[in-house]
């Protein structure tokens, strides 16, 4: 692996990776919108406007003149490659699969998946790497069931997703993984074209197959597969690691079912697994009297914005799972925000209390300072989470 190169806008504090790094906090205090250098495996180093304040982030991410499509290499079918009416058309083919009602209907399946993992953990214990034994299998199995992707193929697609989200992977590695992903999903899509399955990919082919090219269906499938497992794996793992270091907060999640929904929101806000969001200005914009030129790249630090206390009168650096409702942008904001957020919430709401109830003596098996966090990946996670009970 080459030398790690954390960008200041993505940086987490060395001694506590849940917190923004000091240089990021300095940007948050500054009135000026700074220009910074951001490294990228595919684009090389690029200059961007750094956005750290919550209100600025909300304004910009909700502004349809700030595009995501131009800020990334184009992948047909991937919602992040589209903006405006084209984006809305494609997104609304998918939103019906991710409504609150649909997520609620999936709850029994998620309960079963979680229960099976807990049984397997109990049988294998009294210790485990929770990433491999709990955090990764649950969302992977859920998204496989939902999409109609064979769970047996998980090792391959999980590895490819990891490379795709690693800011330190090389351009060649990323291009190779993208080609592998295309080939794999291409095979699944061809199967659904012949005989649409009883799952999301089959439903999309049935309902929208005549409006979508195969390459778009492949892009949709890969987007949902990667977004559906990698982020929730990471969120479960860092959420558990955090709660194990805050036993009083953990006890609330375990013992008070009425507190779980709010606790999950606080954990999302506090952990912010998707650290930064890249954008590009399609037109000249003005934020708090400061100009962003047409064509300029913009990087929004969700990590900083979710800790910005301006106007809240609250201490947002303290973890408080009983906090009154506090808006956060862990799923993004505006037209591109996370499509699967209700599904993600449902998995977190089921998995966290179930784990702590089943293993009331759960503890870290390594000193907290030795937990191996992934701080330079696009998604904040842990490499392993050794626990005992």
């Amino acid at each position, binding site marked *: 692996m080459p030398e790690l190169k954390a960008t200041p806008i993505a940086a987490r504090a060395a001694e506590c990776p849940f917190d923004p790094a000091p240089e990021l906090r300095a940007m948050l205090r500054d009135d000026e919108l700074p220009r910074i250098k951001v490294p990228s495996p595919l684009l090389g180093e690029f200059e961007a406007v750094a956005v750290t304040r919550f209100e600025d982030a909300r304004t910009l991410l*909700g502004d349809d003149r700030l595009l995501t499509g131009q800020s990334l290499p184009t992948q047909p079918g991937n919602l992040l490659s589209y903006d405006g009416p084209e984006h809305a058309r494609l997104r*609304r083919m998918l939103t019906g699969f991710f409504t609150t*009602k649909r997520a609620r209907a999936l709850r029994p399946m998620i309960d079963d998946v979680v229960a099976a993992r807990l049984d397997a953990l109990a049988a294998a214990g009294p210790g485990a790497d929770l990433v491999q034994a709990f955090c990764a299998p649950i969302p992977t199995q859920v998204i496989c069931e939902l999409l109609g992707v064979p769970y047996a193929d998980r090792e391959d697609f999980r590895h490819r997703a990891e490379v795709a989200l690693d800011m330190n992977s090389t351009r060649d590695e990323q291009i190779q993984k993208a080609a592998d992903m295309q080939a794999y999903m291409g095979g699944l899509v061809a199967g659904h074209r012949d005989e649409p399955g009883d799952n999301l990919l089959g439903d999309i082919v049935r309902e929208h197959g005549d409006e979508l090219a195969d390459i778009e269906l492949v892009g949709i499938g890969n987007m949902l597969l990667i977004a559906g497992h990698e982020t929730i794996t990471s969120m479960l793992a860092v959420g558990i690691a955090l709660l194990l270091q805050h036993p009083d907060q953990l006890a609330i999640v375990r013992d008070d079912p009425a507190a779980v929904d709010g606790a999950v929101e606080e954990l999302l806000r506090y952990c912010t697994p998707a650290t930064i969001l890249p954008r590009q200005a399609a037109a000249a914009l003005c934020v708090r009297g400061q100009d962003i030129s047409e064509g300029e790249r913009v990087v929004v630090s969700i990590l900083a914005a979710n800790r910005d206390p301006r106007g809240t009168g609250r201490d947002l650096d303290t973890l408080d799972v009983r906090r009154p409702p506090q*808006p956060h*942008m862990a799923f993004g904001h505006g037209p591109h925000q996370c499509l699967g957020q209700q599904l993600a919430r449902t998995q977190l709401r089921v998995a966290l209390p179930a784990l702590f109830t089943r293993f009331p003596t759960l503890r870290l098996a390594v000193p907290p300072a030795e937990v191996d966090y992934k701080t330079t990946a696009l998604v904040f996670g842990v490499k392993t989470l050794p626990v005992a009970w």
Partner: protein
Amino acid sequence: MRVEVDQERCAAVGRCAGIAPEVFDQRDEDGVVILLDATPAARGPVREAALLCPSAAIVVHEHRGGSHV
């Protein structure tokens, strides 16, 4: 209290339908918000849904012709 929703702005993620299901629903085909009750009695959850709407697609008028929240 009077509630308005903007179906164009709505990103169809169903935050409101999760928080105040008696006031907000989602269209089955594309998840876009449906307002079930424009003058709801239960104000707390509606205010919370408006505050937390990640598209700022819900406007709450607290008084007749009054202020926005």
